[in-house]
């Protein structure tokens, strides 16, 4: 959001004597990528402001101040195997930022909740992947990290104690280009389910290379279900997607760059369980038709789509595993493993989380990759992440 938004809104919020809370987070990373070793990190201050003028109105905002250090300019091609590169450099710079991450007002009527403004939208039941989520791209090594807000109008109409109809509208310069998504949420026995439909536009990453705007008109129909069977938590999220490419210079609509309409399905199936010894296990499987099934078929666009979040995954079939155990007083040991079943690569990341003091956490996460050098995870060797956070 532009700075005038902050200038206008902050005095209003401050005048309303909001509650202040938030956290400070500092992260240091080391990563071995091929022959190069990179060190980088950030310091982040997040300030949350919240005020309730009355029982039915909530006004909130989150401001992120983030300062990067170490390697702050990244060449995208370093994350793409050489055979798929069509250039030598495509740099992305991470500038220090002051960001109004969220600013919203929620009004609750007896039969309607209305939230207007920049806000987090987190649909879906999957942990690592959410095929029905058109707003966010999760980081697999930290899927539960907060997401950036989206400027939308959101409504929720309760139908009964277990059912509701909700929707999101993200206005653009005209109706066709605006994002629309609706959900019908309900439950049946021990299961909750949600049916959703969406229409939206994404700027395709293919335009990045040659600096032109390429819009994809996308539509989605999906369903998610969560419940349990035989003492195991069980969930699934499915999305049918249709992509229609409708803009971009004609010159690029050649046989190589021609992009016909695409229909594809994405499905996530997950289970979780807490064993008698308190070990928590979560497993998810993703199948994404939009990804490639064979390594040799990958091209630069596939990598760019995947890195930018235009595609949920680079290839078709993935597994995700999360293990956690509260081993000592306020210390938990956990591990994340991700596997790409199509190219045989993967990554495993043991982690230690220590609630060192009340409201202060320190975590050490490592990740080690396997697979050939030209595979998705095999491209990277290892990484180490130290994160310190303190809430106030």
């Amino acid at each position: 959001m532009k700075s005038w938004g902050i200038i206008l809104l902050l005095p209003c919020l401050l005048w309303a004597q909001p509650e202040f809370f938030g956290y400070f987070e500092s992260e240091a990373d080391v990563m071995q990528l091929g022959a190069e070793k990179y060190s980088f990190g950030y310091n982040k201050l997040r300030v949350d402001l919240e005020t309730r003028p009355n029982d039915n109105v909530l006004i909130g905002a989150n401001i992120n101040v983030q300062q990067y250090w170490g390697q702050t300019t990244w060449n995208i091609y370093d994350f793409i195997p050489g055979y798929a590169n069509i250039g030598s450099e495509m740099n992305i710079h991470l500038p220090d930022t002051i960001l109004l991450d969220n600013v919203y007002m929620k009004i609750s009527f007896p039969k309607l909740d209305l939230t207007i403004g920049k806000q987090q939208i987190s649909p879906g039941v999957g942990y690592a992947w959410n095929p029905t989520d058109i707003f966010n791209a999760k980081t697999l090594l930290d899927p539960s990290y907060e997401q950036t807000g989206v400027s939308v109008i959101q409504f929720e109409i309760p139908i009964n104690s277990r059912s509701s109809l909700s929707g999101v509208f993200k206005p653009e310069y005209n109706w066709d280009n605006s994002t629309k998504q609706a959900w019908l949420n309900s439950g049946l026995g021990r299961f909750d389910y949600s049916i959703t439909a969406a229409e939206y536009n994404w700027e395709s990453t293919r335009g990045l290379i040659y600096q032109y705007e390429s819009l994809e008109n996308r539509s989605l129909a999906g369903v998610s279900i969560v419940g349990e069977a035989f003492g195991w938590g069980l969930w699934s999220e499915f999305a049918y997607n249709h992509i229609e490419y409708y803009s971009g210079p004609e010159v690029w609509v050649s046989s190589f760059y021609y992009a016909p309409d695409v229909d594809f399905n994405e499905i996530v199936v997950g289970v979780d369980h807490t064993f008698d010894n308190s070990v928590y296990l979560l497993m998810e499987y993703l199948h994404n038709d939009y990804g490639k099934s064979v390594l040799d078929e990958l091209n630069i666009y596939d990598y760019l789509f995947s890195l930018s979040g235009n595609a949920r995954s680079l290839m078709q079939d993935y597994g995700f595993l999360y293990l956690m155990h509260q081993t000592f007083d306020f210390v938990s040991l956990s591990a994340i493993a991700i596997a790409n079943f199509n190219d045989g690569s993967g990554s495993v990341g043991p982690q230690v989380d220590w609630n060192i003091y009340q409201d202060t956490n320190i975590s050490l996460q490592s990740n080690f990759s396997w697979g050939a050098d030209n595979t998705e995870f095999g491209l990277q060797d290892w990484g180490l992440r130290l994160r310190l956070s303190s809430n106030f």
Partner: protein
Amino acid sequence: MKYRLVLISLFLFSMIQAQDKLAINIIQAVTELMSPENMKSTGTQTIVTSSGKTRTFEFESYMGGKGQSSLTRYTKPAAIRGQAFLTLNNADDIWTYFPRTKRVRKLASHAKKQKVQGSDFTYEDMGSGDVFMTKFTPKSQGEEIINGDICWKIELIGIPEQDPPYPKIVMWARKSDYSPVKLDYFNDNDFNSKTLLLSDIKIIEGLPTAMKVLMVDHKEHSSTSMETLEATYKWEPPKGFFSERSLKK
């Protein structure tokens, strides 16, 4: 001689029957006391680990439908501010809300055994309702004095088909007002794994209310105390209050 034996057997049988009926009546009274129609409260929760480290939380809690539904929202400390969980059907259905990601997760029944915020209470322990009536068979074990109060001692044996939270619970409830003052929880090995102590019982709006509750974990050598700061039974939940909608507020 045979006639006398039959008479003694009949007498013993009727005594056992009477004791069981007494136990059922006591558990009914305890359940009614512990499951008021509605309740709204605020309180603190302090975890003391085996090494003496402490963590303190503050929360607001809502209960409805005679304990069938509950909603608990943490207000402090900052790290978990706004985190909430909703239980329906005597904690058979649990949803949690994480404000940092604005995400609601439905937890499967295995999660009922998980510790709430690392405390010695499980989600199942936090639910109440008529669980003692429906998932256990009560047996009277006579009377004992606990903290100067004459108490009924009741053994609750879990009914396996009903998926009881513990295989066995022994409860002591005051004879004067049926307020439970101590509960021993046993695991599958008949080991007394946890003890719940209820104290500082005050009359609030006509109902005896334990202002201090202490759960001691004998295996982990840790404890969690919960102190009620304010409570009212006159709160009426708005229609549809125990829902995901309220969880996200």
